[in-house]
């Protein structure tokens, strides 16, 4: 039997006064790529926020187990240090904060948490430069301020750069392909595919199936009205494209 990294049990969650997740059950298998698809308003983004402990989301019932332990009460930074990474749909700009300095702080926070030695600036910069090249990013990404004045494509590539350097165990990609041209999409998906190592778990949240041509999913989960209504293999994508979400009935 394969290993479960994340198990979501009967999760109910509100944003403001409105219940968005209404008893959601989902198991993520270690080393696999899970795609979450569903119509607008189904609760896809709320699910990703609930997993990383976002302040907008209030969990009212149910639980989230990560490697068998509940993380429901854990702080956002604690979840991150434990290996859960979210690539944001709209990465926020932070003026004056140097991109490399930020990323080194994050990488070293995680290394410290894992009992590893922290990287000095020289070691870090060497590492960062090699990844920048791989992702087709300009070297000025080192000196620019975090996401400030970045194009949509640059922001998404910067998310992927962070993902690669933080080496997370669970990677949540929230609409990673939105606003990307074909070159950026290819660079981003190459970066993601390189991270597949049979151990890392991916949760790809997407509205469109386009990204799934680049990042081949193992499972498709359909989310409707706050619940997972269907789980199937990649063949479900074609069916969804043809008949839409309306044709999916709760199992």
């Amino acid at each position, binding site marked *: 039997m394969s290993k479960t990294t994340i198990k979501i049990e009967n999760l109910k969650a509100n944003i403001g006064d409105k219940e968005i997740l209404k008893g959601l059950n989902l198991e993520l298998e270690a080393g696999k790529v899970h795609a979450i698809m569903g119509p607008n308003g189904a609760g896809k983004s709320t699910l990703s926020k609930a997993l*990383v402990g976002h302040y907008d989301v209030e969990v009212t019932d149910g639980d989230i187990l990560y490697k068998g332990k509940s993380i429901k009460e854990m702080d956002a930074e604690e979840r*991150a240090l434990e290996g859960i990474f979210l690539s944001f749909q709209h*990465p*926020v700009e*932070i003026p*004056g904060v140097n991109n490399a300095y*930020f990323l080194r702080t*994050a990488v070293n926070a995680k290394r410290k948490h894992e009992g590893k030695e922290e990287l000095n600036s020289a070691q870090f910069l060497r590492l960062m430069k090699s990844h920048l090249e791989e992702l087709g990013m300009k070297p000025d990404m080192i000196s620019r301020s975090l996401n400030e004045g970045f194009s949509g494509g640059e922001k998404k590539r910067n998310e992927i750069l962070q993902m690669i350097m933080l080496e997370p165990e669970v990677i949540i990609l929230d609409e990673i392909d939105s606003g990307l041209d074909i070159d950026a999409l290819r660079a981003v998906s190459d970066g993601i595919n390189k991270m597949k190592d049979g151990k890392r778990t991916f949760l790809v949240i997407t509205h469109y199936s386009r990204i799934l041509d680049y990042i081949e999913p193992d499972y498709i989960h359909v989310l409707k009205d706050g619940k997972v209504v269907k789980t199937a293999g990649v063949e479900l994508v074609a069916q969804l494209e043809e008949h839409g979400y309306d044709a999916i009935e709760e199992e």
Partner: protein
Amino acid sequence: MANEGLDKAISGDYALGFEIDIETETVPPGLDESTIAFISKKKKEPEWMLELRLKALKKWRTMSEPHWGKLKYEPIDYQAISYFSAPKEGIDSLDEVDPKILEAYEKLGISLEEQKQLAGVKVAVDAVVDSVSVTTTYSEELKKHGIIFCSISDAIRDYPDLVKKYMFSVVPMNDNYFATLNSAVFTDGTFVYIPKGVRCPMELSTYFRINAINTGQFERTLIIADEGSYVSYNEGCSAPTRDENQLHAAVVELVILKDAEIKYSTIQNWFPGDENGKGGIYNFVTKRAICEGENSKVSWTQVETGSAITWKYPSCILKGDNSVGEFYSVAVTTLAQQADTGTKMIHIGKNSSSTIISKGISAMKGQNTYRGLVKIQSSAEGSRNYSECDSLLIGSECGAHTFPYLESKDTKGQIEHEATTSKISDEQLFYLRQRGINEEDAVSMIVHGFCKQVFSQLPMEYAVEAKALLELTLEGSVG
């Protein structure tokens, strides 16, 4: 919510609140002719200085305390303040300084001993405790370059011609209520003279410390950069934690002649009082520079984190053609602190230019006001100014206010003004936390990013100090 813990995170303890346990000689509170005669005698001043002081006192009695600032405070009883306090034993050299004072300065992160020995980064330091300058390092070495770096009291005795020529030339004796008070009672401060064509080979620094209870600190600093010279000067300040308010009314005068440049940096960390506004320093300071000659340049950089109330406007009179004035400021108000600060740029010379970058950070119940005047006189043909005033709010009880005054008599003068107010957003904090950075580090990272333009103007070792200070002020790390 993401703001949980933020209040805790920004109520940082004041780490410099210790009291130096030394014997001091303090005059009883009160201010009249005899107090001034006492100070003047203590300082072994010549008669002319005493006369000037008495003239200032007479003038001061006819003036009234100004209240146009956006500041609220209890009336100050000027007769309840002691105007002179000094460590008891006289001091001639560093070796004679009470070890307790040296220890205290080490706690402040400035070891005079060490600095004396360090060959690498040389920083000459003048340290002022209460009313006297206790030690000045490197004076001998500086003398080789013809540079004078000493206490103002020494300068009055040893260099009367320079003092007579320049003191009160930038900030006249009757300039304003607090400057006039200072003119009457100033106790110590620093004097710097850089001769023609000399580039000062090291950073000059003064540390001011108010230690004794119920004393005011009234220092006076005068820096003269003769033609073609350059100096970078830094001042730092701190005071013990006390329940009473203490008054600090300093005057700083900078004179910059043709082709000369002064870079003046301040890290002000006077005791801020508590979250209910109890205690803390009233920091009412007059700082002004005159760019007297062509192509002269002055640059004020200030990081203001302390004081219960800050009321100061380091200003530039740009008299020389092509002269340049710069003002870079970070003012932090947290707890119940109030700051009304900014600058004045007075353009008189042709093609003079000025830059104002002001960053105000307010947290808890802090109130932060930027007040600035840019005046381009009709003689200042082709002059220009660029101003940028940004405010950052942390939490919902604090406030930020901006009052830019612009006056241009030269129709060709260019004035650009930009102002922004932003809040540390939950979204920014969350982004950093999702990358494993804890909340305190995340706040400090965002704040440092906001201050970057100003910190980059500070000399390296002071930029490090400023960052650390900001962390201490805003992050509640146990000192």
